[in-house]
């Protein structure tokens, strides 16, 4: 345990934190995911891509236990949540953080209280330290201290994303699920976001599952990329492996005009 924590990243790979096997999820007659297999390794940043409506969010929600599956198994931290007791489930839920696409901040609470919700629920801390920690998390995601007193409805879209990330990180989770974290952010904000994710991965050994369409994030922070198509994983691998793929969708995704300018920019660095 200690070794993994101290040397996260490459050395700690090959141990799946979450593994999905033969997953089938559908609504009515339509199967969204059909026999999907995916491993999320400890300490990696996995970028997850796929066309709109291909079931990226459905997969995330199924792993989190929000959408029921028809068959298949999902093992999280070595626990099958279908068979886990309430206490085991809670123990797992305490170890993950989720950033929803729209932020999902509690509108009746202030920003600071939003970040403190998981802390109050799971940690026994003095109010003073809890305030300090919540402010620290807000500062880590790049927000000014005076944001803490505001209510979520007073925030801009980008700020909501940041507060939601601060809340997802409140308990120093082992894995965070990010649903399009950089959409709606300006490029500088998105870059800060990427840097923050990468710092957290290096220092805390954080594992990141990121649904994203941001080519910048895919190039700069993702260790591995998985592409979803036809209810299965089309291909999973490093960015270089993705670039070499023959799949038509991946080809147009990574060799389109935008991707090219991005790759050029990367090469120039």
């Amino acid at each position: 345990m200690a070794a993994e924590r101290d040397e996260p990243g490459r050395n700690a790979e090959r141990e799946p934190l979450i593994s999905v096997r033969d997953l089938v999820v559908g609504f009515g007659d339509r199967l969204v995911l059909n026999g999907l297999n995916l491993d999320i390794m400890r300490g990696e940043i996995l970028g997850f891509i796929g066309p709109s409506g291909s079931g990226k969010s459905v997969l995330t929600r199924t792993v989190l236990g929000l959408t029921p599956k028809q068959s298949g198994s999902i093992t999280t931290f070595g626990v099958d949540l279908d068979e886990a007791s309430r206490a085991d489930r809670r123990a797992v839920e305490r170890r993950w953080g989720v950033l929803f696409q729209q932020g999902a901040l509690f509108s009746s609470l202030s920003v600071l209280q939003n970040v403190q919700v998981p802390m109050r629920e799971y940690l026994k801390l003095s109010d003073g330290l809890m305030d300090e920690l919540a402010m620290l998390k807000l500062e880590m995601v790049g927000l000014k201290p005076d944001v803490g007193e505001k209510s979520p409805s007073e925030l801009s879209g980008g700020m909501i994303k940041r507060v939601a990330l601060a809340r997802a990180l409140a308990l120093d989770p082992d894995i965070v699920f990010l649903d399009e974290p950089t959409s709606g952010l300006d490029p500088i904000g998105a870059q800060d976001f990427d840097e923050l994710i990468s710092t957290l991965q290096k220092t805390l050994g954080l594992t990141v599952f990121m649904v994203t369409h941001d080519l910048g994030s895919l190039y700069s922070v993702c260790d591995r990329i998985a592409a979803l198509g036809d209810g299965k994983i089309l291909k999973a691998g490093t960015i270089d492996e993705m670039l070499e793929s023959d799949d038509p969708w991946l080809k147009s995704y990574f060799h389109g005009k935008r991707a090219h300018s991005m790759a050029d920019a990367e090469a120039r660095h």
Partner: protein
Amino acid sequence: MDDTPGFSVERSDGALRLSLTGAWTAAAAEAVEETGDRLPAEAGDAKRVVLDLSGVSRLDTLGAWVVDRARARLAGAGASAEYDALTEPQRILLHETAWHDLTPQQRARGSVLVNTLSDVGQAVVNAGRDVVGGVAFLGALVAAIGRVATNPKRFRMTSVVFHLESVGFQSVPIIALISFLVGCIIAQQGIFQLRRFGAVAFVVDLTGILVLRELGVLLTSIMIAGRSGSAFTAEIGSMKMREEIDALRVMGLDPMEVLVLPRILALVLALPMLTFLADLAALLGGGVVAWIYGGIGKEVFLSRLQSAIALNTFMVGLIKAPFMALVIGVIASIEGLAVKGSAESLGRHVTSSVVKAIFMVIVVDGLFAMFFAAIKY
């Protein structure tokens, strides 16, 4: 391996060495805080303190913050405090969470008396703003009517018919049922109370006048405020919430003409018709009860009714209906347009739309009662 956070103290040539052990993570949050708070005390008045983190198995932001806070307190007490034997991730983490004062500023709190007075003042100002806003909105509505009247092509007939159906036609069953029941209740109570004076026959006068002058229109207005006023606020409000109103504006469409006018017009047309229906249903209810409880046959009931009420009794109720509709429609539209970005605000405005509309309907009814009494109608 024992993962509880702890530390050992060691003194060597003037320096105090605090060797931290265990996992300093959120999993043991209580112990981390308690142990971290003990660190500065343990150091006492040592001039030089070295924090050795090589024995720490795991460190997260919570642990790093607590450790660095302890270091800052030592430094604040005049000692030189530094880290030793940091691994690279620990160094980055401690840098990332470097201690600085983050205690949120407490907002200044005034005395209870001052707060109460300022709340009262605020409420008065808000009420005043509501009145001004209502009048301004009415003006804008009249202007929109003027624009549409001079350019009838801009009139949205389809929209009016649609709202007429949802406001008028679809509320027929509930309005008829409620009015029928209230007619029954009034007649029943009337019979029981009037029987003591041997004046059962007057129940027809009582029911007829009460229903036609007041209750028919009042019940209908309150029902419509709850049913359609809330729907208007919710519809307009959710459009406002998702910037749909702004989308209309930038396309050169006036929300007043597109959204508000058809709804208010539909309401102004529907409410008199519904009031008429409510009057009929309530009289029917009264007649049924008078027949069953009071033994008043239908010929007697009808002839007494004819002598008790005149056209003006009926008209008093009906004249009020369009004004009630205007009050409900204006309040619903103002509240809808006042919705801000969140669903919470939508809910708040729908509630206040219904409450304000019902309140104003009753106030307007009172004003009309005074008016009709003054002109002896």
